[in-house]
């Protein structure tokens, strides 16, 4: 009898757990589902009261209408160029400096490394005005290098790579040196292949960060042909608010969000492990 009661108690506890977790998941997903549904509605359907859940006829023309207002394909291309260049830059500067700090003895090493640690937690707003000034003086306003170059030096990336490379045995390097390998060759042929998992983690997070970045591109880019996806969404937002073209705004929002969602769903295991790893150690 007592055992039965215990079982019923455990069962209802389990049901309660599922109910809460499912409720939370619904709250998380509804905004996205609503966004996708309303990207296929007319403006009057979006604003109707009581709300309409599904469009009477899916308005696929919203997406062609959107392309007339905002060149989404151009925005994607720009975002991909900027994100790819930044990711490659961060991976290169972080791994090569991380390698030097992990595997070489040289005067000033610890001092320089502490300097890098000190800049690791520096909030972006502290450097915003001077970096903007530097970029403007270089004539990099409305250029991709203005978006990319200030972002490719990552103190966090150097720290992460140094920690990772430190765990590799020195014998590997010594063996290569005996075979006559030069130091750059050791970096390219031995270090880089061995730290691929760490590079992939760093690269993924850098990519998402750059892809979603808004404030810095807002300052550097005003040329419509060079806008990244968030900038395009912002100008669409301002346009739609005046013109009451809410269906175009929702179509644009959906198009800007769905690619990251798809990438994430395919690589989710990777992301979540990376966070558990870097989050706890960083």
């Amino acid at each position: 009898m007592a055992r039965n009661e215990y079982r019923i108690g455990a069962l209802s506890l389990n049901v309660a757990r599922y109910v809460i977790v499912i409720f939370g998941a619904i709250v998380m997903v509804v905004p996205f589902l609503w966004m996708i549904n309303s990207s296929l509605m007319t403006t009057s359907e979006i604003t109707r009261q009581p709300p309409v859940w599904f469009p009477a006829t899916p308005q696929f023309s919203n997406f062609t209408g959107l392309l007339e207002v905002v060149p989404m394909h151009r925005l994607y291309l720009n975002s991909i160029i900027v994100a790819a260049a930044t990711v490659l830059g961060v991976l290169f500067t972080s791994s090569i400096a991380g390698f030097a700090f992990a595997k070489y003895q040289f005067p000033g090493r610890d001092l320089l490394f502490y300097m890098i640690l000190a800049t690791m937690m520096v909030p972006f707003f502290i450097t915003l005005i001077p970096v903007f000034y530097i970029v403007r003086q270089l004539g990099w306003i409305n250029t991709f290098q203005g978006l990319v170059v200030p972002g490719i030096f990552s103190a966090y990336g150097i720290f992460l790579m140094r920690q990772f490379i430190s765990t590799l045995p020195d014998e590997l390097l010594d063996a290569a040196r005996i075979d006559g390998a030069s130091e750059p060759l050791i970096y390219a042929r031995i270090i880089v292949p061995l730290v691929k998992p760490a590079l992939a983690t760093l690269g993924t997070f850098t990519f998402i960060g750059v892809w979603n970045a808004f404030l810095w591109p807002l300052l550097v880019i005003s040329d419509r042909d060079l806008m990244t996806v968030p900038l395009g969404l912002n100008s669409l937002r301002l346009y739609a608010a005046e013109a009451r073209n809410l269906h175009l705004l929702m179509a644009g929002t959906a198009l800007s969000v769905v690619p990251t969602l798809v990438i994430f769903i395919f690589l989710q295991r990777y992301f979540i492990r990376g966070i558990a790893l870097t989050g706890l150690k960083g």
Partner: protein
Amino acid sequence: MIWAYIFISLPVAGLLVFSLGPILFTGWVSLHEWNMLTPPSEMPWVGLSNYVYLLTQDTIFQRALVNTFIFVIGGVGSNVILGLAFALLLNSRLRGQTLWRVLYFLPVITAPLALGVIFGFLFNRNYGLVNSLLIALGGTRQPFLASPDQALYVIIIMAVYQYLGYYIVIFVAGLQGIPQDYYDAASVDGANVWQRFRHITLPLLRPVMLFVIVTNTIGALQVFDLVFATTNGGPANSTMTVVLHMYNTAFKFQRMGRASAMAFILLAIILAITIVQLRLLRDRTQE
């Protein structure tokens, strides 16, 4: 080793130019008046008057400080409580772990700007889904983002929605680091669920808790995108945050000295809060 210097030269130079140098330069500019049009060598020295102005006369800045603190307390508090609660739920033997984590994680990888647009619709006064739900449940229509009393709380909800999944993942990783033996031993000694949570989970989770609170606080103090995309500081500055006000001061009104002083005040606040949090949570760990 000459190669070591060659390897670090570019990254270190980059950090000097784009990180360390700018920090010092911002500090220098904060003691001057500057519109970024004259060369920095010619900007007039004003001493601490930018700081004095901000702390005594700039009512928008003071409002922004208060708003930012409310945002931090509400956001970090909710993320810690909800994040830990859902992590505990997900860490128990629940089916569909991967599915739940993916669903909870979707907002984390979404651009804050896009979420701002979506939430602007959901919380719209006239046709937002949240109002429809309220009315269906017998409530009355609320202005939400259009109300000076409610807008900040809607933005807190958005921020919690966006980052909760991230903190759930971190808490789950922390929970999985606690050896099962401790719970088994406590069960043998007759400890109930609450006692096990209070005396095993919480103490052993302190390092993770520390990480979550410190990083979330630092991030929340810098909120910009979410506000920019929804209320842009309004109505009546009720959602003005420090970084948004700094952005306006610098890039709308070209007052670089004042904006730099703002940045340094916020940096000082971040450092002070972080040190206090580290102290408090470390001391308790040594109990």
